[in-house]
C-alpha cells in the first residue's frame, strides 16, 4: 500500500512511536505480527492489534474505494437528475432554490426571531413525505429539536393541509391509491423527533446518526432546529466552538452525501457593529458561514417576510416574499414589487440589505 504512516488515522502517540521505530510506509507494517510490532515499536499489545486491524480494514476493497473512487461529472449529472428535492409549498422559494431544498446538500436557514424558520422546518418535514407520484420524495424525516419549539399540533395542521392539497391534485389511479395511505396519522408517525438539551447531546446525536440512517434508509430529511442555540450561551472558549462546529458541519455533509438526505440547519442572527453602523448577520461566526452548502436568510421588511438566497453553488441570488398561513409556509399573495433604485435601499429595520430579483432589472 502506498499510505505513509503519518497519514494514517491513528492516535498521535502511537504514530510517533511507529515512526521512531523506522516505519515509514503502511506496507512496512502489513506483514508484522502484533507481538513483533509491540517489541519493535514499543507500543502496548492492544495498540498493536488496533493498528493492524485498521490496516486490514483500510485494505478492504470497499474502504479503499470510498476515498479513491471518482465519478465523472456526467455520472454526477445523472445522479442529480434522479435525486429529487423537497418542495416548500411556496413556489417562489422553490424556483429560487431550483426546485426545492436539494437532497445531498446542507442548507442553512438564518433569520431573526419569529420570522418563520421553525415553520419552514416543520413544513419541510411534512413535505418530504409527499408520495413520489405527486412529485415528492416519499421519505421519512428526523427532527432534532434543541430549542423546544417543535409543536405537534402545528405539524398536524400542516399535514392536514398537505393531504387536502394532494387530494385536489389527484388525477389517476396511482395517485388516488397513494392518497388513501396518506393520512395525518401516517405523516406524524413517519416523523422522528429527538430533543437535545445541550451541545454535548447534539454532538452525540450526530455521531449516532450514521447508524440510525442505516437502520432507517427511507429517511430523506434531517432537520436540526436550531444549531445555534446550544452553542451560543455558556460557551467560553470560542475557538473550541469554531472547531466543534466545523467538525459537525463536515460530518453532516458526509451524511448528506452518503445517505442521499437533505440536511437543514437553523441559525440565529446577531448584530455586528462596524463603522458606526449595526447590521444583522448570521450568528456563530465568520467561519461557520462556509460550513453549509446553501444559505437562506429570512428577514423582515416592515410587515413583509422576505427570503434571500445568499449562498448557493448552482442558483443565482434572489429575494422573494412568502407568508405563513394556517396551512403553513405559502406564497405571498402580493404582486412582486418592481425593483427600486439602489439609492432607495433602506436598512431601517437594521436587517440585511434587500436583494431584488435579478430578472426585474431593466
Amino acid at each position, binding site marked *: 500500500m*502506498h*499510505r*505513509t504512516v*503519518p*497519514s494514517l488515522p491513528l492516535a*498521535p502517540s502511537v504514530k510517533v512511536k511507529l515512526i521512531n521505530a*523506522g*516505519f*515509514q510506509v503502511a506496507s*512496512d507494517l502489513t506483514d508484522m505480527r502484533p507481538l513483533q510490532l509491540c517489541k519493535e515499536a514499543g507500543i502496548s499489545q492492544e495498540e498493536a492489534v488496533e493498528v493492524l486491524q485498521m490496516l486490514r480494514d483500510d485494505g478492504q476493497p470497499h474502504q*479503499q474505494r*470510498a*476515498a*479513491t*473512487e*471518482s*465519478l*465523472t*461529472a*456526467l455520472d*454526477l*449529472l445523472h*445522479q*442529480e*437528475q434522479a435525486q429529487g428535492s423537497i418542495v416548500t409549498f411556496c413556489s417562489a422559494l422553490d424556483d429560487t432554490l*431550483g426546485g426545492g431544498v436539494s437532497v*445531498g446538500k*446542507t442548507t442553512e436557514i438564518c433569520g431573526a426571531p419569529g420570522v418563520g424558520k421553525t415553520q419552514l422546518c416543520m413544513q419541510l418535514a411534512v413535505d418530504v413525505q409527499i408520495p413520489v407520484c405527486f412529485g415528492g420524495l416519499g421519505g421519512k424525516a428526523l427532527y432534532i429539536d434543541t430549542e423546544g419549539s417543535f409543536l405537534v399540533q402545528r405539524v398536524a395542521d400542516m399535514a392536514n393541509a398537505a393531504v387536502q392539497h394532494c387530494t385536489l391534485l389527484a388525477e389517476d389511479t396511482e395517485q388516488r391509491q397513494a392518497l388513501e395511505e396518506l393520512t395525518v396519522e401516517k405523516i406524524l408517525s413517519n416523523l422522528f423527533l429527538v430533543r437535545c438539551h445541550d451541545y454535548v447531546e447534539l454532538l452525540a446525536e450526530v455521531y449516532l446518526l450514521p447508524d440510525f440512517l442505516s437502520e432507517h434508509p427511507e429517511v430523506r430529511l434531517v432537520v436540526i432546529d436550531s444549531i445555534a442555540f446550544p452553542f451560543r450561551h455558556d460557551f467560553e*472558549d470560542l*475557538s473550541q466552538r469554531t*472547531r466543534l462546529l*466545523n*467538525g459537525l*458541519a*463536515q*460530518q453532516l*455533509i*458526509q451524511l*448528506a*452525501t452518503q445517505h442521499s438526505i437533505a440536511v437543514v440547519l437553523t441559525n440565529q442572527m446577531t448584530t455586528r457593529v462596524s463603522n458606526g453602523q449595526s447590521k444583522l448577520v448570521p450568528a456563530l461566526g*465568520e*467561519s461557520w*458561514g*462556509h*460550513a453549509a*452548502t446553501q*444559505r437562506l436568510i429570512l428577514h423582515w421588511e416592515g410587515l413583509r417576510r422576505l427570503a434571500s438566497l*445568499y*449562498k448557493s*453553488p*448552482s442558483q*443565482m*441570488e434572489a429575494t422573494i416574499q412568502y407568508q405563513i398561513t394556517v396551512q403553513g409556509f405559502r406564497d405571498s399573495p402580493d404582486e412582486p414589487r418592481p425593483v427600486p433604485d*439602489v439609492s432607495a435601499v433602506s436598512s431601517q429595520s437594521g436587517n440585511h*440589505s*434587500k*436583494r431584488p430579483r*435579478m430578472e426585474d*432589472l*431593466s
Partner: protein
Amino acid sequence: MVILREGICPGINEEFIKALQSEDIKTVEDFVSCNLEELAQKCSLSYKALVAVRRVLLAQYTAFPVSGGDLYEELLSSTAILSTGNPSLDKLLDSGLYTGEITELTGSPGSGKTQVCFSVAVNISHQLKKTVLYIDTKGGMCANRLLQMLQTKTPNMEEQMEALQKIKVFRVFDVFSLLACLQHLRSNGLQKASVGGGSVKALIVDSVSAVLSSLLGGKQNEGMSLLMQVSGELKMIAKDFNIAVLVTNHVTRDGNGHLKAGLGQSWSHVPRTRVLLQRVEEAETSSIRTATLTKSSRQACHLVEEFDLCHWSEERRTSISGKRKLEERSKP
C-alpha cells in the same frame, strides 16, 4: 529515513543488521553518519566491509545537484499556463494558472470561490480537452451548474457530455480520506485517470480549510502535522506530474475586524499565489466580485480586478451581458 534491511545493498545480511542494531543504528542515515572505526571495533565487523557498504549506500540514496540551466530548460518545456476562462482573472494571475504550482482562492461565503473553480474546470475540460480532478469536501459540486456553464460555451450536446466526462469528482469529507485520496493519486491514480481522457492538467481541491480547520488549535497536537502532509502531497503532485493545483480557503476576521485567509501563517507559505475574492461593498445585490492578488511571485501585490459571476451564464441574462470592468487600481 530508510530502515536498514537485508538486501538493500550487497553485503548487508541478517547478522550485519543485528550487529548494527545492538549499537542502535537502525537507518541508513545513522549508518553513514557514524564513525566506522569505532563501529568496526564494537561490532567486530570488518572495516573494509563497512566502508564498502557505506559507499554503496551513499551512491544509492544521495540526491544529486542539478544545474540551473538544466532546470530552466526543463521548466520551459514542461510548464503550461491554463486560462481560468475569465480574462480579468487571467490578467490578475499573469495569464492563468501555472502548472507545477499551487494557487489559492480565498473569500467570504458566497464570494464566488466555487464558481471560479467550476469555471476553471469547465474551461480546461472543454477548451483544452484535458482531464480535471476535482476533490470536493463541502458538497458544493453541482453537475447541473457545470452543464449550465458548458451550455453557454457550446450548444452541441456531445461536446458538453465529452467535457463533463473529463471532469472527475472525488468526494472526501475528512483529512485522512483526503490524504488517502492524494496518496492514491500520486502512486497510480493519475495514470489511470489519464487513460482515455487526455492527460490530467489540473487538480482542484474545494476546500482545503473545511477538513483542516477543525484540527488546528486548542490542545490538539496533530493539526499542524496533517496540514503539512496535505501541503506536501499537493506540492509533490503539482511538481511530479506538471499539474496546476487550485485550492480554496475560508476567511476569518482578525482582531480589527479585517478579513484574513484561514488556516494561519503556516499555510500561508504553501500556495505560490493567493487571490482574495470579495463582494462589491456598495451594491450587495449584484454579482460583481473583486479579486485581489494578495501573494504572488510574478506580479505586484494588491492588484485588483473586477469580474462578473454572470460571465459564465450569459445566456440567461439578456440585460447585463457579462460586463467585465477591466479596471486596474492598486490599493492604497
